[in-house]
C-alpha cells in the first residue's frame, strides 16, 4: 500500500478515514506541506494529501463570497480575487520561505486550519473571522457541514471557529466558504524613525485609538529595520515605526494628514506609496526578512499591546534575540540567536507572569517534540481540549499529537 493517499473526491476521503478508523491507520493531512514545520512533528503516519480536492466552486464578487475545495492553492485564489479587485482581508502570509525555503503559497485548507492572519488582523480579523462555512470529514468518519455562505448566521454552534486553528486534528476539510472583500484602491504607509520600543508602541496605540481605521501598526527596532529590501525603511540605521492606511483615495489622503499632524512632534515623517506599501507589509507578514534565518527557534508571542515593550526588555535580559512588533505592539516576533537550550524555559516563565500566549513557530523536530509548541493550558481547559479531540476523532486518526502531546 502506498504511504500517500490522494483522494480524488470528498467521498474518497470519507472512505479513507472510515477505513482508517476500522484498521487503526493514522494520517498526516497535507495540502502543499508549506507549513509542516509548525506544530509538533507527526510520526508514523500515512500522508493524506488533499491536493486533488482542488478548484473554486463558487465565486460571486457582488455577494462577497467564495467557496473552494480545501486543497485549492492560495496562489489561484489570490489571483482570481485580484482579477476582480478583491482580496482576503485577513492577509494570509506566505510562510514557506520560513519553513522549507520554497516558494509555495500553501492551500486554503492550510490557511484556515492554522488560522493564519497578517498585519491586517487588527482591523479585519483573523482567518476565523472570514470563514463562513465548510464541509469536512471528522476523524470519526462522518461527513458533515457547518455554517453557510452568508455572514449573518447564528444557526447552531459555530463550528467554523472550532475548525479554524485546529491544525487538522478534528476533521479533514473538503470545501471551504470564505468572505471576500473589495481591495482598497489606495494604500499608504507612514513612518517615523528613531523611537525606542516603548515610545513607539505608545505612538502606535495613540494612532489606533483614533478613528483612522489603521490597517497595520508595526515597529522595527534598530538593527532590524535595516534588513528590509525597501531603501526608505533600511537606509538610515534607526528604528522605524509604521502605520498603514488603506481605502478610497480622498479618505486615505485625509487620514494621512491627521496622522502627520499628530506625529510631527516625534520626528520627520516619511510616506510609502501603494507599491512600496504592498512590498513592505509583505515583508512584515512573511516575518523572515526581519528575523535571524539561522535561528534555532522562532516564536510568536501575543500579549496586551501595552505590555509588549516591557516583555521584550525582560526577555532580552536573558535571551539573545532579534525581535519586532506587529499588531500595534500586541504581537512580538522573535528569533532566538544564541545556543541556549533554555530559551523555551525563559519564554514560558516570562509568559506565566503575564497574560497572553507564546507559540513556538519554528524549531527543529527535536525541539518541537520536547517543548510545548502552543501555550500550555490550565487543567480544566486541557480537559475540554482532550474531550473535543476524542469526540471528533475517537481513534486519533487525524494529525495525532500535532498540537499537544497525547491529544
Amino acid at each position, binding site marked *: 500500500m502506498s504511504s500517500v493517499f490522494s483522494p480524488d473526491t470528498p467521498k474518497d476521503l470519507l472512505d479513507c478515514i472510515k477505513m482508517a478508523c476500522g484498521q487503526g491507520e493514522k494520517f498526516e493531512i497535507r495540502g502543499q506541506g508549506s507549513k509542516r514545520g509548525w506544530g509538533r512533528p507527526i510520526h508514523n503516519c500515512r500522508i493524506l494529501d488533499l491536493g486533488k480536492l482542488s478548484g473554486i466552486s463558487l465565486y460571486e464578487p457582488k455577494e462577497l463570497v467564495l467557496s473552494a475545495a480545501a486543497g485549492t492553492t492560495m496562489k489561484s485564489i489570490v489571483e482570481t480575487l485580484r482579477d476582480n479587485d478583491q482580496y482576503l482581508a485577513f492577509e494570509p502570509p506566505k510562510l514557506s520561505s520560513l519553513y522549507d525555503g520554497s516558494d509555495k503559497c500553501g492551500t486554503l485548507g492550510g490557511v484556515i486550519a492554522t488560522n493564519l492572519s497578517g498585519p491586517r488582523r487588527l482591523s479585519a480579523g483573523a482567518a476565523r473571522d472570514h470563514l463562513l462555512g465548510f464541509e469536512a470529514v471528522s476523524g470519526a468518519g462522518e461527513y458533515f457541514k457547518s455554517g453557510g455562505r452568508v455572514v449573518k448566521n447564528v444557526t447552531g*454552534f*459555530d463550528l467554523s471557529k472550532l475548525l479554524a486553528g*485546529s491544525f487538522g486534528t478534528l476533521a479533514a476539510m473538503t470545501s471551504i466558504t470564505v468572505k471576500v472583500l*473589495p481591495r482598497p484602491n489606495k494604500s499608504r504607509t507612514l513612518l517615523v524613525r528613531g523611537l525606542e520600543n516603548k515610545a513607539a508602541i505608545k505612538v502606535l496605540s495613540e494612532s489606533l*485609538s483614533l478613528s483612522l481605521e489603521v490597517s497595520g501598526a508595526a515597529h522595527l527596532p534598530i538593527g532590524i529595520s535595516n534588513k528590509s529590501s525597501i531603501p526608505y525603511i533600511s537606509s538610515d540605521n534607526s528604528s522605524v515605526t509604521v502605520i498603514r492606511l488603506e481605502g478610497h483615495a480622498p479618505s486615505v*489622503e485625509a487620514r494621512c494628514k491627521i496622522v502627520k499632524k499628530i506625529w510631527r512632534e516625534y520626528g520627520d515623517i516619511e510616506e510609502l506609496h501603494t507599491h512600496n506599501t504592498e512590498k513592505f507589509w509583505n515583508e512584515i507578514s512573511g516575518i523572515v526578512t526581519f528575523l535571524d534565518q539561522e535561528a534555532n527557534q522562532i516564536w510568536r508571542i501575543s500579549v496586551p499591546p501595552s505590555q509588549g515593550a516591557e516583555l521584550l526588555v525582560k526577555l532580552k535580559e536573558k535571551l539573545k534575540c532579534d525581535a519586532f512588533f506587529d499588531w500595534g505592539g500586541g504581537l512580538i516576533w522573535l528569533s532566538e540567536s544564541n545556543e541556549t537550550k533554555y530559551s523555551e524555559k525563559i519564554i514560558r516563565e516570562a509568559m506565566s507572569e503575564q497574560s497572553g500566549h507564546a507559540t513556538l513557530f519554528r524549531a527543529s523536530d527535536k525541539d518541537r517534540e520536547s517543548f510545548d509548541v502552543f501555550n500550555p493550558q490550565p487543567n480544566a481547559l486541557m480537559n475540554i481540549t482532550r474531550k473535543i479531540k476524542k*469526540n471528533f476523532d475517537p481513534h486519533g486518526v487525524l494529525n495525532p499529537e500535532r498540537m499537544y502531546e497525547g491529544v
Partner: protein
Amino acid sequence: MKMPDLNLETLEKRPEIIKALRKIIPEENFGDNIIEDEDGLKVYECDGLSAYCQLPMLVVLPETTEQVSQTLKYCSDNDIKVVARGSGTSLSGGALPLADAVLLGLGKFNKIIDIDYNNRTVVAQPGVTNLSITEAVMHNNFYYAPDPSSQIACSIGGNVAENSGGVHCLKYGLTTNNILGIEMVLMNGDIITLGGKYLDAGGYDFLGILAGSEGLLGVITEVTVRILRKPDLARAMLIGFDDIVAAGDCVASIIGAGIIPGGMEMMDKLAIKAAEDFIQAGYPLDVEALLIVELDGPKSEIDYLINIVEDISKDHGAGYIRISNNDSEREIFWAGRKAAFPAVGRITPDYYCMDGTIPRSKLPEVLKSMNEMSEKYDLRVANVFHAGDGNLHPLIMYDANKEGELKRAEDFGSEILKLCVEVGGVLTGEHGVGVEKRDLMSTMFTEEDLKQQQRVKCAFDPEGLLNPGKVFPTLHRCSELGRVHVHQGKTRFPDIPHF
C-alpha cells in the same frame, strides 16, 4: 412545543434543593437571591418570545463567580437542570425556563470591572447591558460596536450567548468579532478563562465556539470586549425606490463598488407606512422600498462616498434621495427604522418576527414567494431587512384571539425559513435557534451535521444539564455519540425520538 421529560425526582426534592442552594448563597441575601414563591417566579416565566411561558422550579441570583461555580457543581452532582438568563430579551426562547430546572439569573453581575484605553478593552460582568458599555467610554469618544436593537436592555453575557448583531455589524462585525476574552463556569463547577486583552489565544478556539452557543456550554461570568473610537462623522441617506427589486440591486452595487457602509437597512411599503405613522420620521409614503444607508468615517471620506452612493442609487432608478445634514436629522432617519417593530405592533394585535438570512441576490425571488405565501395564509407581512448582509425580518401580522391564526402565522414563518435555506441562506441571522427554530434545524442540517455540534456540547456538558430542550431537535446521549460503530465501512446510530 415539546420540552424534555420532567425529572419528577428533582421536583420532589425541591425543598431540599432550596436548602442546599441557601448554603451556597450568603444568608443575609436569601430574600433577594433565591426566589421560590409563585409571584416572584412569574417575573421569569418567559423571555422576549412571549408566546412560550413556563414557571421555573426556582430562581437563583448569585453575585460571585464562586457562587455560580458552587451552584452549578451542586446541580451537576444532583442531576438538576440549569437555565442561565441575562436580561431575558431573547427573541427565540433561549432563556425560556423549564419546570424542573434552576433558573440562574445573572442580573446581579452588573458591574464594569475595567476600562483600559491603552489596550482598547473593557471588562464587564455578564449582566451589564450592551449600551452601558458604550456609555461607560463615550466621554472619551469610544464605543462598543455591536448594537442590537434591544441594546438598552440586553446584557453583554446574553449577547455572547446569542452572538448578537445589530445594524452596524455589516462593517464592524458581530459579537464574536468584538470579544477578546471570557471567564466562564462549566456545568461541573470548573472556572475557566478564555483569551484576554490580546488576540488569538492558541489552542482550539473555544471563545469562538462560545459565541452563539445559546447557554448550552457554560455560564459566562466575565466578558472582555474590544472598544473602538467613535467615527468622526456619520451621515445617513434615505433612498426611495418604486420597485423593491431595484432597491435590492442597488444594495449589491454599492457593496460591489467597494463601499461597506456603517449600516444599510431596507423597509417595504407596509413597514414604511407603519413607521411613519408612528414616528413621523419624514419617510416618503409613495415608494415601494426605502433604503437607509449610513456612511461613517472622516468627513472627506463621507463627502466622497455620498456622491458615489447617490450616483449608484440614481442609476438604479431611485426617485427619492435625502441626506442628513446633522446628527439630529440622522437620528430621526434611524428612529423610524428602529421603531419599525413596535410600529407594526400598532397596526396588528400580534406579529411574529422571523430572522432568516439569504444571499442578497436571492432577494427578488424570496420577496415574490413571500407575497404568494401571504395570500395563501391570508396574513399580511411587513418586511424590514438588514439589507447589507441579507438578514430578513419579515413581520407576520396576526390576531392570537382569532382561532387558528397563531398556527397559520407559525406555519407561514416556517415556510419562509425553509425558503431561506432552499435559496442558500440560513434559519436565523441574529435571533438564535432557542426553542423557536429548534424543530426546523433539520431543514438546514443533516443528522450527521447536528451530531458534530452535539459533540461540542458533550465535551462541555456531558450530562446535558445546561439549557436542555434548546437548539437541538433531537437529544443524543453523549455516550452514544462517542461510540463509533463501524461495520463494513458504514456507521450506525440508534434513532432517538424527538422530544
